[in-house]
């Protein structure tokens, strides 16, 4: 099966500048060598703590942040992947370059990127800063259409009203300003804007973390409906494992710029393989006092991504760590069907 989105060895480093001439003295390795596939129609959850690089990965795929190296493919036919693979094997630089130029998002710029932006959209975390406070809702929602010159003014307005209805808001709201709405309603408006150009792929950057639980549930149900209706593919970034578990088809757990575990949510939740995933699950409090978990308190804190520990990045906080963990980095290995884990001593 060909994926809708594929990243290959994607790296995003932010230089740490110092001194008068702003010389880089080091790099924050926010996304470090990530190869990830998002299948057509998948709802992939990307889970991790703050600073693990999940947002950076999402925004790099959308090219809102420049990747340092690696490749991003979007809606690329499988023959092309075969061609690229064979060219890589033969080390045929010329063919490779032309292939990258036409298919690798990481090389795109200007008009080529703009065309692509129609198909992939982002919904931000904070609905209070993602809507321009000085613009009316109709201008916010129809901006993507204006930018892509898709329709005339009247039709844009009609489409904007249609979009508002889609996200469960009345079209009467179109001539109001963002500050007149609550957080949940604002997030709906942001979703309407993301849908304006009928994209195929939407990245959600913690869309419910600023919302109350009751509203969060509303938004999650809405996302599910929209996904079915328009056959969308989601990359859902969140720090809440429970949210990912209840709505996603697959989950990727990130730690310090790396994916440490990948799999189906029900399986991951029941039998996590990576000790970090287990710690995340056990640290998340659940609203059931009788089912008090054996609370596992993970010692220490997440190390700085500018200077990650050698070997397995989790080993200083891991109870199962051995010598090999401190020296050699574990690869993300296939373990069973649709399951990957990067650990020398998996729990299962």
């Amino acid at each position, binding site marked *: 099966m060909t994926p809708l989105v594929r990243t290959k060895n994607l790296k995003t480093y932010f230089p740490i500048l110092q001194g008068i001439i702003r010389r880089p003295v080091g790099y924050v390795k926010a996304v470090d060598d990530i190869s990830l596939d998002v299948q057509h129609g998948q709802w992939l959850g990307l889970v991790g703590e703050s600073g693990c690089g999940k947002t950076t990965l999402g925004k790099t795929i959308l090219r809102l942040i420049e990747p340092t190296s690696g490749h991003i493919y979007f809606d690329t036919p499988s023959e092309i992947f075969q061609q690229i693979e064979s060219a890589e094997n033969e080390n045929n630089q010329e063919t490779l370059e032309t292939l990258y130029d036409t298919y690798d998002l990481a090389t795109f710029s200007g008009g080529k990127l703009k065309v692509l932006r129609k198909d992939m959209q982002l919904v931000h975390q904070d609905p209070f800063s993602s809507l321009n406070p000085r613009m009316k809702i109709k201008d916010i929602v129809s901006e993507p259409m204006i930018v892509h010159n898709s329709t005339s003014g009247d039709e844009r307005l009609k489409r904007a009203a249609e979009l508002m209805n889609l996200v469960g808001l009345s079209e009467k709201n179109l001539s109001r300003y963002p500050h007149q709405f609550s957080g949940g309603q604002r997030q709906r408006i942001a979703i309407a804007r993301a849908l304006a150009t009928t994209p195929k792929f939407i990245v959600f950057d913690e869309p419910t973390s600023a919302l109350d639980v009751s509203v*969060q549930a509303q938004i*999650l*149900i809405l996302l599910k409906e929209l996904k079915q209706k328009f056959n969308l593919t989601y990359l859902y970034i969140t720090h809440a494992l429970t949210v990912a578990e209840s*709505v996603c088809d697959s989950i990727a757990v990130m730690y310090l710029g790396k994916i440490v575990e990948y799999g189906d949510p029900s399986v991951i939740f029941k039998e996590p393989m990576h000790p970090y995933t287990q710690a995340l699950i056990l*640290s998340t*409090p*659940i*609203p059931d006092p*009788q089912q008090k978990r054996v609370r596992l*308190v993970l010692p220490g804190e997440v190390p700085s991504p500018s200077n990650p520990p050698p070997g397995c990045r989790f080993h200083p906080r891991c109870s199962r760590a051995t010598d090999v963990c401190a020296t050699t980095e574990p690869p993300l290995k296939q373990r069973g069907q649709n399951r990957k884990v990067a650990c020398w001593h998996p729990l299962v």
Partner: protein
Amino acid sequence: MEKLVQIKGVSVNFYTYEGVVRALNNLSLDIYKGETLGLVGETGCGKTMTAFAILRLIMPPGVIETGTILFTPNGSAPVDLLSLSEKDIRAIRGSKISMVFQEPGNALNPVYTIGDQISEVILLHRNNEMIVRAIKDIDCHLNQPADERNKLFDYFIRMQKYILAAMLNSPGALLPRIVQKVPLVKRLLWRINNEAKKTAVAMLKEVDIPDAERIVNYYPHQLSGGMKQRAVIAMALACSPKFLIADEPTTALDVTIQAQILELLQRLKDEFNSSVLYITHDLGVAAAICDRVGVMYGGSIVELAEVNELFVNPLHPYTRALLAAVPKPGEEPMPIPGFIPDPTNPPAGCPFHPRCSLAQDICRLEKPELHEIYPGHFIGCHIDAGENIDTPSQN
């Protein structure tokens, strides 16, 4: 069980351009000695306002309209926090009642070290204790064998001791007042600051900060979020308060760090034998650390019960809806229809009725009172006799 704080009929209004916001609506709540009481609810339900009302931190345009808040620390007669003078309430804030805020970054002043900030609280409320310790320290020095000491230095130290003793015995006298005010002479009191710093280090150790002697000289920006929150907790506990208000102390933190902080808070509560008012929007956190839980909606408490009772046998429709909305493994979250009501124009009658599936005519007309259904289980709902109530739980 003895009551530590009794909140009776407190109403808080905010007079804004948009109209009057009723932040707290005739709220009554008791907090017992040694318990952790959780307040849960969604944005704008008044949980933080409750904390601010207890400490009288409500600023204009907010006004505490009615009610009393009786505070009964060990053995003494109850005092009404709302009728105390500004000076008296300031003496209580930070010493007998203290607060931990949501954003540890905002609660610490970026231009002072962690140690300075903890010392400040200690010097403000435990000054005399620090003087006694400083005098003891001097005595200890003077008791050393005579030949190991410098005679001139001795004289100097005795003078220090004299000033300190004067400060302790007659703080209003001329000498201590001069010494405390005059810039260079103030330096003579370095021993007090030293003692405060030592206490600060001890507090940091208490909250499990590794390498406390070094961290005490750090500035807030040099610490991670979890460490900052620990420092804030150390500051709040510096005067062994009888009552600690924690306003979403882990909301800004990651789950693994949250687990550490929750465990710390639980241990410290037992150690200091204080009561905790724990404010959170996360039902999971409330279930994990609270003894009793109150659910707030629209500025009043709608349900209050012992933690097991509340989560196993929720009675108020709002509590049930809230529990159903929490994402759980293998279950789709159930949204609550509608939105949180506009605080300037709340619905008449029960504030929850526009979103409630069981609402009847009476709900639209009359605001239900909080009343006891089972021992220790209170709800504020009109429909408690009929189909709403399942069999009572077994505990």
